[in-house]
């Protein structure tokens, strides 16, 4: 797969609307004749009502025209639930509703972040409405937020606008207890050189003008692999088949064997007779490193204009050498030259990329001076944050054989994209490269074999064995969250009880302890239990004979959250976290001993999927639902928390009292 990758994150609520199962709610055809289309429900009518108003969170004014919708997971009839357009005073009325204790009321309007009943901040958790037969729940207030905007203009050294170049925002996120720079939305400039990145959550951002010098081989077939990422916006290069030219032919020959692909980055000056020149990537305001970049503070409704860039060509060098090691075919392996310190970022941040020739040689064209890390790995993984779809500028010539996307439990608004690279197989490379004013030649890149992790699965007691129909993944995740290590997994099916995880880079990994319908009780390697400490592959050798013992005895903690007056603490956030402070960081992306839940309208909560251990449980304001990713919050929460011991198979009840946790 090639070309533009669009990653979008949809709220899970969307999935609540399943296709109607056959035969549950017959639709009775009405007698003949036509009736005017109406918004009434033809089935599943009830006697409840929910009414309220939609307002702009900043101005307090009603938002007429907003679309208000209902969600309920307990309503099993599968019928789509009604939607209402808010009237000129922002009001909405849902009538004839069947009883349910978990209605969510959402609202959406163009240019606003989606709101929901009970949501107190953008992106925060939604509350629930319990509706009994005949009950009228009134004055449901939904606030919609206008988020922030950063915009600017890109010009070149002659102050002419630069069209179709990619600009991206970056922000820091805490993952597994460590800060990471993560990329957000991308925009590309229009015919005036103007870009505009909207829908930014309140926070601190850095902005970069991307520029990748993508070298492809003269032998790279024209067309598909050269596909420009011009889909970022109209007006990028587009080949025109009607003229007889190849689609995506925006590349230039710099010598007989190499071509520079011009995609959504500035077209460099022609090499001419003098020194080649390139437009380097830059952070606002015109600096080369993110350390020197200005941090822009975005608040609700911020419209930050004038975040402008001027592209200036700098002398560029050619970096060439050969790859050594690796047992297989090296042709078309993609090498990426990442700016030092930005190795963990994704497509579009590379200073340069190139493809290895069949004889093992490689050349990066047009590399600006700087300190870089040359990176090659079997799968490229990166994080991104933010709503909606992000189109990532893939390097020209990259051929991927598989793409997976997902979200990180360890960082609630961060998603990941993992692209398995077609060429290269089971090797990796990572080494510093320093580029000055002259060409770098004779660089030797040593391809290192990746590590295999293998073993077997043991079943505790009378734990059910897998059947032919079971299929699940055993996944390991970088303990400190580093996306550059990537995740690797073994697909286990057909009743197998052995596993091999291939393509693992040296490092320390956490186990995701949810394994299909089982839970990992322990993982033992070389006589040591590595369940908590993680698996260390940094010695570079294969890891064999790991014994993973699993159980099917699930654990669930339930209860009721109340405020200090004993009233149900509806929509509060209930958090379970481990007592052991060593577990507050380095837990990978899917910590099995952290769980949060939103208390329902009656204050009740459920925390399923926990693993055995000692826990603290605390109820806090909904706004702090994601605060557990910060160890300082956990420290502050301990005095307010209730201690619970959970063993396999436990279904315990523990009521909690809403606490005010203040992080200093």
């Amino acid at each position, binding site marked *: 797969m*090639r*070309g533009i990758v669009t990653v*979008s994150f*949809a709220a*899970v609520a969307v999935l609540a*609307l399943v296709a109607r199962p*056959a035969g*549950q*709610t017959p*639709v009775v*055809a*009405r007698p003949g*004749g036509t*009736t*005017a*289309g*109406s*918004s009434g429900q033809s089935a599943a009518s009830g*006697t409840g009502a929910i009414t309220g108003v939609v307002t702009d969170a900043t101005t307090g004014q009603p938002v007429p*025209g907003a679309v208000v919708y209902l969600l309920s997971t307990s309503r099993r009839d599968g*019928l*789509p639930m*009604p939607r*209402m357009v808010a*009237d000129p*005073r922002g009001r909405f*009325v849902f*009538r004839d509703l069947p009883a349910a204790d978990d209605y969510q009321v*959402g609202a*959406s309007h*163009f240019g606003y972040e989606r709101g929901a009943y009970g949501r107190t901040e953008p992106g925060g958790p939604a509350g629930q409405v319990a509706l009994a*037969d*005949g009950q*009228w729940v009134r004055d449901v207030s939904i606030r919609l937020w206008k988020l922030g905007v950063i915009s600017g203009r890109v010009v*070149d050294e002659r102050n002419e606008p630069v*069209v*179709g170049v990619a600009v991206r925002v970056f922000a820091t996120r805490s993952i597994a207890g460590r800060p990471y720079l993560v990329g957000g939305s991308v925009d590309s400039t229009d015919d005036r050189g103007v870009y505009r990145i909207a*829908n930014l959550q309140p926070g601190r951002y850095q902005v970069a003008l991307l520029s990748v010098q993508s070298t492809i081989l*003269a*032998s790279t077939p*024209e067309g598909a692999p050269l596909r420009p990422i011009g*889909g970022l916006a109209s007006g*990028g290069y*587009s*080949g025109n088949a009607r*003229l007889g*030219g*190849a689609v995506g032919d*925006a590349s*230039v*020959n710099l010598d007989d*064997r190499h*071509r520079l692909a011009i995609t959504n980055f500035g077209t460099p*000056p022609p090499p001419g007779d003098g020194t080649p020149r390139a437009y380097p990537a830059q952070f606002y305001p015109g600096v080369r490193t993110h350390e020197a970049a200005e941090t822009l503070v975005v608040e609700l409704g911020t419209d930050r204009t004038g975040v402008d860039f001027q592209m200036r060509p700098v002398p560029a060098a050619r970096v060439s050498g050969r790859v050594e090691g690796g047992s297989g075919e090296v042709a078309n392996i993609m090498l990426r030259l990442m700016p030092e310190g930005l190795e963990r970022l994704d497509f579009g941040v590379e200073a340069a990329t190139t493809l290895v020739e069949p004889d093992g040689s490689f050349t990066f064209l047009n590399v600006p001076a700087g300190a870089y890390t040359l990176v090659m790995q079997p799968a490229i993984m990166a994080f991104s944050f933010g709503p909606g*779809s992000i189109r990532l500028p893939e390097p020209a010539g990259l051929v991927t054989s598989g*793409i997976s996307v*997902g*979200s990180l439990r360890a960082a609630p608004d961060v*998603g990941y994209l993992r692209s398995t690279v077609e060429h290269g197989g089971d090797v990796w490379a990572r080494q510093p490269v320093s580029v000055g004013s002259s060409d770098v030649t004779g660089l030797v890149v040593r391809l290192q074999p990746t590590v295999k992790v293998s073993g077997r699965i043991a079943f505790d007691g009378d734990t059910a064995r897998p059947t032919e129909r079971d299929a699940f993944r055993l996944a390991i995740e970088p303990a400190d969250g580093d996306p550059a290590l990537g995740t690797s997994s073994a697909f286990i099916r057909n009743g197998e009880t052995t596993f091999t995880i291939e393509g693992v880079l040296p490092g320390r990994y956490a186990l995701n302890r949810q394994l299909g319908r089982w839970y990992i009780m322990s993982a033992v390697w070389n006589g040591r239990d590595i369940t908590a400490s993680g698996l260390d592959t940094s010695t570079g050798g294969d890891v064999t004979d790991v014994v993973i013992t699993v159980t099917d005895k699930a654990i669930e903690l339930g209860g009721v959250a109340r405020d200090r007056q004993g009233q149900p603490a509806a929509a509060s956030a209930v958090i379970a976290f481990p007592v052991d402070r060593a577990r507050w960081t380095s837990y990978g992306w899917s910590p099995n001993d952290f769980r949060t839940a939103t208390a329902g309208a009656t204050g009740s909560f459920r925390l399923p999927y926990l693993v055995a251990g000692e826990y603290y449980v605390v109820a806090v304001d909904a706004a702090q639902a*994601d605060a557990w990713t910060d160890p300082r919050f956990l420290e502050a929460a301990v005095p307010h928390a209730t201690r619970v011991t959970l063993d396999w198979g436990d279904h315990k009840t523990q009521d909690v009292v809403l606490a005010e946790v203040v992080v200093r």
Partner: protein
Amino acid sequence: MRARVAVLTLACGAMVWFTAAPGSRLRASTPQTPARDATFQPTSGTASLSGVVVTDGDTPTPVRRAIVTLSGDGLRPSRGAITDDDGRFAFERLPAGRFILTAARPAFITSAYGAKRPNRPGTAITLSDGQALADLTLRLWRGGVLAGTLRDEFGRPVAGVPVEAVRAVTPPFPTPTLTLSNNGVTTDDAGEFRIFGLEPGTYVVRASPSAPQTGTMGAPSEADVDRMLDALQRRAPAPIGSAPVQNDVPDPPAVDFAPSYHPGTPRAAQATRVTVVAGQTVTGLDFSIQRIATATVEGRVIDDQGRPVVGIGVQLMPGAPPGPFEPRVPRAPSATTDREGAFSISSIPPGEYRLFARAAERQLGLTEEGPAVTRMSSAMQGNLLWAYQDLAVTGNDVPGLVLRLQPALRVAGRVVFDGQTLTPPEDLTSLRVVLRADSVVGGAGFINGVVQGNIVAPASVAADGTFELPSVLPDTYRLSVTGGGLDGSGWWLASATAGGRDALDFGLPITPGGGADVVITFTDRHSGISGTLQTASGDPASNVFVVAFAADRTFWGPGSRRVQAVRPDVDGHYAIADLPPGDYLLGALSDVDPEQFDDPAFLDQLVPASIRLPVAAGEQKVQDLRVGG
């Protein structure tokens, strides 16, 4: 914890269908790019070529940082260069041959050397060994810009709505071209949109807002809300388990967002037509999004014995191919029948629809109530059962529809190789016969409710040349043959006759109750017309178009293979290949819009100025022409 689900959409996946568009009949006569070769050696030679890229207009100015691409049959790979600050470019060490030279720059329209207007075919350049061709001037046109603001019914800007500049094109099939897909943007947070790099032409501007979630959407007025709240106030709390209270206030009308065209109409026919010339910026295209009344369509699906069919998918598809400016990839709302075979599809905007159900026969199992679809599969295999009904939705609910399934139709035939010099391919089994429906009905597949194509699953050809498509739905189809390594082999698809008519000329009509028996003939005898064009003074005339079109008017029409045009090379040579045998009219034109060839009235105008030329089977007619005399 807020669980999140990530959805991956591959934008390029959607493009597959777009690029399947049939090629324009107006071709620059340059073959396509070469395939990958393990023993790659770049071509090189002793010729050179250089020139300058300038803007169009009375005072041309150099265009810097344009990418100039030289491609041609004997050049592997094609060459690319960046223009310098004076707009200059140069290619060295070129082999002799014929080349096409193009220039591209963002916000400009990719243009070919010799093109008279943007996005028109250029003139091929011929180079001999050692030749140094200098001072070529390549004109590059700045694309047009359409900009405006989108608002809601309250006059407030609406953000995040897709807006497209849609060009009226009348291709032979309702298939978008690659060019169109580049014309979409999304309104920014101020409701503004700006679409740039547009080819000259006539456009309408369409916004396509959508609402979250599904389900009927009510749009009560302020008075409606007052009345409903008042009724709730007056209602006594109902005892638990009591019957629903009758509402004395009717439900508000059901509505949904609809695509909206500038100046604020849901109808493409009423949209403002904006004509853009190269480099023109049209601002102030402000308009409002629309909500329109929607309806619910309900009915049942039964089998041929009248028993309800449980669990079959029912889709509501556009009833006719989209007209000019209308969306070409419509949403297809769908539902699945319940235990009684009943279905209900809500939020249907007004329009002409075809309500459509189908399942493979072997997917149907029997329940107590009747046949049930046991396993839905997207594969179109086995005997297909289908039913459809055309309906017009006007904002009123449509209840009581009955769809009775009936078996699909059979198209069979054989592939014949009629060779004089070539021997037929030994293995015919890699050939595929492909039918493409004129409308979206015949073979429409759906992914996530979006019509993905109009191609019937291709039929494999048996070793003896026979083939069978067992499950074809009534429609008119375009027939083609793929695979078998026939491209470039010298074999040419000459005819596909069924019922005495050639499907390659007139399409393959399949009507209910009928089927078709098709004889597909490949030949190695190519017929065509070639020659040289000269001006009155005897110089090569390359700055014109040569068109050959059938003398018999019944062959005229969109996409006809008997209407072809080319531009001569710089040396005046032209060649029109693979014309079916017959009487042709040959003419020359100074400039033409390719779409004009679809218009019989335009061809009629050419008749008096054309030469009549019979072309026999296998005949390579040579006809030199002199123009401007």
